């Protein structure tokens, strides 16, 4: 037995891994300032576009004046920004994404199927005279990771054991529209005796049906968010691994203390624990436990288009996810040894899909979705803020006179049909609409195709409030 393994057995593998990891990072960080930003958001909430646009604007910050509210950029203190992503194991496909948005006609980047990382080194002139005395320039290292939003929903599993998860899913599947959509699958499940010896074929069939069901639940029509386990819909490097043949048992046996070994129930329970241990925990420890700042991107318009079930589902999904992050005051030493998130920005993406006067309402509506999570964070003394932003602006604001009344509206290219349309998309409600108000004629938030994002010469008109988001997240680092 080598020393390493002896130590491991003594202290426990997790702790040692953590320690090793931390030491490595501390050594790498040295005295330079490091900032790791978590871009959190369910699938299709605009994480990739956000990262692409953010990085692109930052890289051009030394010459274009596209970020007027980002102080270090507007004061022209940024000297240069270097992309160090190549040093990462899985670099973010920055060039492809920017090219896709810059070509004619521009396209939204493909949805993310794997993990990737952006590393930026920002060289800037410090604002305070004292620091300038010590050093003419300073460098801030900014790390952002991109990952499929589906995987995020695995994080809440870390706090739950199999029985708890099953009972949670049970409650979930009792609600509409899930109950109707999952009727067949539930029926198939109820025919199975969970205490019988494990039958891999039966499990495989059920799990395949479950995966199909999950895809059905999250498609454009149903747009539900609470899709667990996330790897079932997007396996990544775990494709066709039997571990992913996992699903919740909706009618578990009454007495859980007497589960025979090798039974169906025990088999699934074992898979669940392995899934947590091998996939979720590793993913979390390697990529998710060490953040300083967090952006939570929420697609409010999707919720408004799909009604109350979608709202409730997204609310519970986001609240669950946000409980998995480390929050707390983060001082200098803390940041070095065990970073905690000390600032959280809740951003409703796609603010360009509503008229400018509705941005405030969008903020208010977002607060409705995240109010539980935000309350917990405030309690921990975390700085939080809500903001309506658009990483890439795909519409122009315009006005039209309708029935003698001037209304502001949007002009852009319809993503489906490809033709130019002008639309007044309706007003964003500030409170949760009552049952009778959720109907299709109240809002019509269409998806617009992006406008071209030029390679250079970026303008403030290419985004909405991206600069304010940057200032909020990183501004204090550049002082």
């Amino acid at each position, binding site marked *: 037995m080598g020393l390493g393994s002896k130590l491991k057995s003594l202290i426990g593998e997790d702790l040692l891994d953590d320690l090793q990891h931390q030491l490595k990072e501390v050594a790498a960080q040295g005295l330079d300032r490091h900032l790791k930003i978590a871009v959190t958001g369910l699938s299709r909430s605009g994480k990739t576009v956000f990262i692409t646009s953010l990085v692109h604007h930052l890289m051009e910050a030394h010459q274009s004046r596209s970020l*007027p*509210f980002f102080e270090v950029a*507007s004061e022209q203190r940024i000297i240069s920004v270097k992309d160090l992503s190549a040093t990462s194991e899985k670099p973010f496909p920055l060039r492809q994404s920017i090219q896709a948005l810059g070509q004619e006609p521009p396209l939204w980047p493909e949805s993310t199927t794997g993990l990737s990382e952006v590393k930026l080194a920002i060289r800037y002139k410090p*604002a*305070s*005279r*004292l620091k300038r005395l010590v050093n003419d320039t300073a460098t801030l290292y900014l790390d952002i990771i991109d990952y499929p939003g589906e995987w995020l929903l695995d994080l809440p599993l870390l706090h739950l054991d199999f029985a708890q998860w099953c009972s949670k899913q049970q409650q979930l599947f009792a609600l509409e529209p899930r109950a109707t959509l999952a009727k067949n699958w539930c029926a198939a499940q109820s025919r199975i005796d969970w205490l019988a010896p494990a039958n891999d074929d039966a499990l495989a069939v059920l799990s395949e049906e479950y995966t199909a069901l999950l895809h059905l639940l999250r498609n454009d029509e149903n747009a539900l968010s609470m899709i667990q386990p996330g790897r079932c819909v997007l396996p990544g490097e775990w494709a066709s691994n039997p571990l992913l043949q996992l699903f919740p048992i909706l009618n578990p046996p009454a007495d859980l203390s007497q589960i025979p070994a090798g039974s169906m129930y025990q088999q699934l329970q074992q898979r669940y624990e392995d899934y947590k241990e091998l996939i979720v925990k590793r993913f979390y420890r390697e990529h998710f436990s060490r953040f300083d700042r967090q952006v939570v991107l929420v697609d409010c318009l999707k919720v408004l288009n799909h009604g109350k079930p979608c709202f409730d589902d997204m609310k519970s999904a986001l609240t669950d996810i946000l409980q998995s992050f480390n929050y707390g005051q983060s001082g200098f030493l803390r940041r070095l040894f065990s970073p905690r998130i000390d600032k959280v920005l809740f951003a409703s993406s796609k*603010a*360009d899909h509503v008229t*400018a*006067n509705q*941005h*405030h*309402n969008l*903020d208010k509506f977002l607060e409705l979705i995240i109010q539980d999570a935000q309350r917990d964070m405030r309690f921990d003394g975390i700085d939080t803020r809500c903001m309506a932003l*658009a990483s890439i*602006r795909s519409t*122009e*604001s*315009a*006005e*039209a*006179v*309708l029935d003698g*009344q*001037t*209304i*502001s*509206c949007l*002009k852009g290219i319809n993503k489906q049909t490809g033709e*130019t*349309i*002008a*639309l*007044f*998309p*309706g*007003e964003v*409600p*500030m409170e949760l609409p009552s049952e*009778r*108000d959720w109907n299709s*004629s*109240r*809002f*019509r938030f269409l998806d617009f195709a992006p406008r071209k994002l030029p390679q250079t010469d970026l303008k*403030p*008109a290419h985004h*909405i*409030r991206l600069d*304010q988001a940057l200032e909020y997240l990183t501004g204090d680092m550049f002082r």
Partner: protein
Amino acid sequence: MSDKPHWKEPVFINPDNLNTDKAAESETPDAQEIPLHAVSLVAEEQDDSQNVDKLSPAPKKRRWANVFTASIITLLSAGVIGEVYRLINWGFETHLVLGVTFAALTSITAISGVVWTWKGLKGLRQLKQTEALHAEAQALRGQKTHGQAISLLKKLDSYYENTPINRSFKEALRQVDSAYNDGEIIHYISNHALKEQDEAARRCVHRYSVQSGIMVALSPYATFDMWLVGWRNLKMLREITDIYGISPGATTQWSLLKKVLHNIAFAGLSEMTIHAGSQILSSSLTASISARAGQGIGAGLFTARSGLQAIRLCRPLPQENNDQRLLSAITQSIISDIKG
């Protein structure tokens, strides 16, 4: 559903029928003209706590004091006019040339006096206007509404007409994005239109503060110090009003000085302690340097604070607070200059 819904339905509009939005992008932010019902939604959120006016409340006028002032002014001016008339009269009686000289001198004095007062009054008017604009901007600051900033922008536009700031103001106005809400517009204009002026004013404050600090530190007489600081302060105020395009004049300067001193005096204990105390104490050099140098730093900081107050009063738009930075920079400069 029999009753009419309280919301507005979404509509498609023929793209050709749109009012072109070019105007909004170039000159005035027309794009933020919004339907009336949207305007009222956020009005209730106005944060009145920010509107507390720090500037002097009008002092109570006492009747007898007024009567006394009026009568004494009348009396004195009657005396002066009579005296001048007799002087000119006597001049003409003595010799024509002497009389013409006296008459010319009198008229020159009268004309220049009137012009001077007029100019000073103009400055006063501007200061008053600035104060009103400042209050309005302060109310809009941090508001997430749309369209309320337009009237303020129009007022600012006419305020800056025919001043050197006009160009940078127009430039900043052109770049205001249609998506900005009122608070963001104020913030943007405040940070971008007056950038050069702020920079110049801060440099000016820094220079005068360091000068008065060093003068006090080096001067041997205590009474002389007061005179020095007063002199530097007045000069600095004149320069600051000049930078922000407010027409300089003795009345303007006087009223500005009054307001500055008033603001400093009523700045509240917290601000005082932060501003002066922490700067002097934190420099921790006070213990090791001489008492004179300490006084120098004190005088320098006083000048800096009145300078910053003057900037605040001359600026129609509220400023982000980074006074602390300037104050510590000034302390550092004074110390290093004295030691060097």
